[in-house]
């Protein structure tokens, strides 16, 4: 067991990774996909196809709508049916490209074979161009365009690349399966990113509840190191299982013993963090010319008839996935996109998957019940649990008092990463994070307005 972990707070929810033995299975192509134009943080992409156009798998259908934005590709071959608003997971209308699938014809130049290509170009610029063209975004949840993250601002130097294989959310297993089944590709992707950044060291961080993955990645790296010196400096680090280890700030603390200042970026302390799935996408883009058209999704929950890790085309309707695995269980009341701690409850099962969709989790009323709110008993468990060292009980009190934005800012409400540890551990069932989230948004607004006024 590893003793290494982040230094402040954290909780230990049962990991419930009941789909861990399920191999990644290819989901048959749906009849229709709905490809969102806003699948990443930043400006929505602009469509570059018209209704009636024939498209192939991997063909760009939308281009970046700004500096922080990304390309979007068709995930099927077929005909563009419409470009119109459609309800997303939350039930809000978003612009979507609807494509009816016919056959499975890929764009010329995309290598769809399984052949492993271990040698990669030394030229960082050409690699970055390929990553941008492939529409890669951070697949760990934040969906920040990867080519932007891999271009540190001038004057900032990266000391270490961290590949995030923690998958600290309960239930999720898609990164774990990816490490086991596509470890070589992840390792090569890691080497490519490391080369782009020009760093000497890269660490693949994995929690110790995944010993098979740790062992496998060590073997993979040992083999690759025999092939080329390009794989020197990449190591696997076992971390103690603790949520939210996979949070960027917590991971940097655990791996490098450095903390990112409030309002700062990881690169300020010499760190760049990329997810396992992103490293795989980088491999596909650089070595195979393959853009993001599919991603692994864990479909799980004790009440769900069949546990699975599926390779899903981007834009697949959720209902199609659920029906494929046996339909909606009668006792499921909540479907979550992502894990139970930070995932979002889905309002609309007609919505389609996004690049960043990592899991569909089904919970029963009992599993997701929140107890009746009681008085704060000042046990301090929220403060003990907060990985940012905040005092949720205090932020809750200040928020509810109203008009205390100055005090809230002083007590660092804006540092909240919304991991949910406070609410998870509160014995009085006080909706700490619900309240803090609102105050955080208000304080962030004040901070932004102040920064704008200074300029």
């Amino acid at each position: 067991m590893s003793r290494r972990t982040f230094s402040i707070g954290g909780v230990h929810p049962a990991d419930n990774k009941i789909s861990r033995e399920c191999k990644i299975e290819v989901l048959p192509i749906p009849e229709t996909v709905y490809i969102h134009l806003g699948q990443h943080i930043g400006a929505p992409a602009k469509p570059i196809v018209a209704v009636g156009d024939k498209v192939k798998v991997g063909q760009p259908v939308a281009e970046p709508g700004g500096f922080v934005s990304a390309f979007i590709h068709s995930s099927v071959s077929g005909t563009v049916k419409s470009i119109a608003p459609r309800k997303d997971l939350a039930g809000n209308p978003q612009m979507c490209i609807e494509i009816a699938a016919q056959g499975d014809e890929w764009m010329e130049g995309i290598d769809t074979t399984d052949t492993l290509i271990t040698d990669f170009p030394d030229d960082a610029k050409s690699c970055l161009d390929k990553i941008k063209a492939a529409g890669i975004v951070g697949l760990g949840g934040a969906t920040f365009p990867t080519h932007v993250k891999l271009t540190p601002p001038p004057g900032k130097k990266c000391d270490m690349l961290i590949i995030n294989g923690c998958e600290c959310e309960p239930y999720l297993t898609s990164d774990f399966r990816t490490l086991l089944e596509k470890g070589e590709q992840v390792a090569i992707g890691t080497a490519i990113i490391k080369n782009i950044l020009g760093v000497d060291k890269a660490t693949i961080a994995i929690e110790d509840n995944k010993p098979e993955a740790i062992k496998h990645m060590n073997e993979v790296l040992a083999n690759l190191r025999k092939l080329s010196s390009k794989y020197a400096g990449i190591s696997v680090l076992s971390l103690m299982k603790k949520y939210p280890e996979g949070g960027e700030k917590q991971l940097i603390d655990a791996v490098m013993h450095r903390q990112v200042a409030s309002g700062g970026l990881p690169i300020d302390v010499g760190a760049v963090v990329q997810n396992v799935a992103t490293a795989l996408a980088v491999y596909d883009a650089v070595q195979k010319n393959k853009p993001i058209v599919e991603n692994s999704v864990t479909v799980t929950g004790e009440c769900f008839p069949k546990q699975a890790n599926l390779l899903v085309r981007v834009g697949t309707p959720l209902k199609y996935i659920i029906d494929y695995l046996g339909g909606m269980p009668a006792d499921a009341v909540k479907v979550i996109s992502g894990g139970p701690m930070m995932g979002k409850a889905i309002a609309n099962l007609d919505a389609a998957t996004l690049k960043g969709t990592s899991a569909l989790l089904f919970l029963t009323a009992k599993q997701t019940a929140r107890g009746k709110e009681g008085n704060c008993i000042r046990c301090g468990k929220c403060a003990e649990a907060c990985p940012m060292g905040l005092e949720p009980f205090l932020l809750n009190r200040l928020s509810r008092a109203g008009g205390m934005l100055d005090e809230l800012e002083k007590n660092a409400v804006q540092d909240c990463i919304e991991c949910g540890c406070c609410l998870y551990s509160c014995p009085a069932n006080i909706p700490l994070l619900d309240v803090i989230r609102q105050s955080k948004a208000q304080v962030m607004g004040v901070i932004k307005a102040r920064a704008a006024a200074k300029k």
Partner: protein
Amino acid sequence: MSKLLVSPSPHIHASVSTKSLMRDVVLALLPAAIVSVVFYGIGELVVLGTSIASCLVLEYLITKYMLKKDCTVGDWSAVVTGLLLALNLPSSTPWWVVFIGAVVAIGVAKMTFGGLGQNVFNPALVGRVFLLVSFPTYMTDWKIPGGLFGADAVSGATPLGAIKEGLLGGAQLSDLTAQYNWSDMIFANIGGSAGEISALALLLGFGYLLLRKVVRPYITLSIWATVALVSLIFSLAAPEQFTGPVFNLLTGGMILGSCFMATDYVTSPMSIKGGIIFGIGIGFITMMIRYFGSYPEGMSFAILIMNATVPLLNNWFHQKKYGRA
């Protein structure tokens, strides 16, 4: 399909609740309660029963008819208060005195402030100190344990009381302490209030609370360290006048107070640093009262005095934030 539950994250909750925490505290106090019934007999059972029942009924009546709020009796916190109050009283306390203590503890110290979590002072201690000041004869009528099965208990002073009186009467400290040895103190063989008599049973319960992560150890340890240090210095400087660390750590309300009263969530500081200062304050004030005060024991007063500083300690000491100096 149409009825999906949509609510913000997190979507799961730890199994801990106010009720489970309070129930753990009750469980942790059970060994001490059982030991005191075994050693003091029926009288102790009456004190325990009256105290717990009064606390529950009073909280029920007050929430239902005076505050007109949801009844909070189900959270077990009134049981904790009742149990702690009883363990702080002599086994010979008449039932109506116990009842008055419960009225003060629940009615005045807890519910007037708004109920669980809102009170500044530890309710059980407020009840006990009120009784100590109002009914000093009942409250200092300590019995030497006779037992449920053994001989009748005889009246006697607590070790702390005997020594204070003896010293005032000009006796030699070494003669006074000769009658107590540490194994008597640990195994319930000295006079005192019910919860004071068996250090071992109390420590067992405290160990359970630590194991279950209901409480953290730093407040208790900081009290013990302070008491040990202060009594070591004084007893080395004037061995004929001041008692030493072992005696002070094992007598009076030291174990009950440091393990169960000072660690009360509501009335102790939230941060570790605050908790350590809080513990140092309790240890120091207790020793000053024991050495120089007119009461033989100062644990209750020390905890109540330090309870008053908790809002300040919470204001001064915050925990270390990520990425901030």
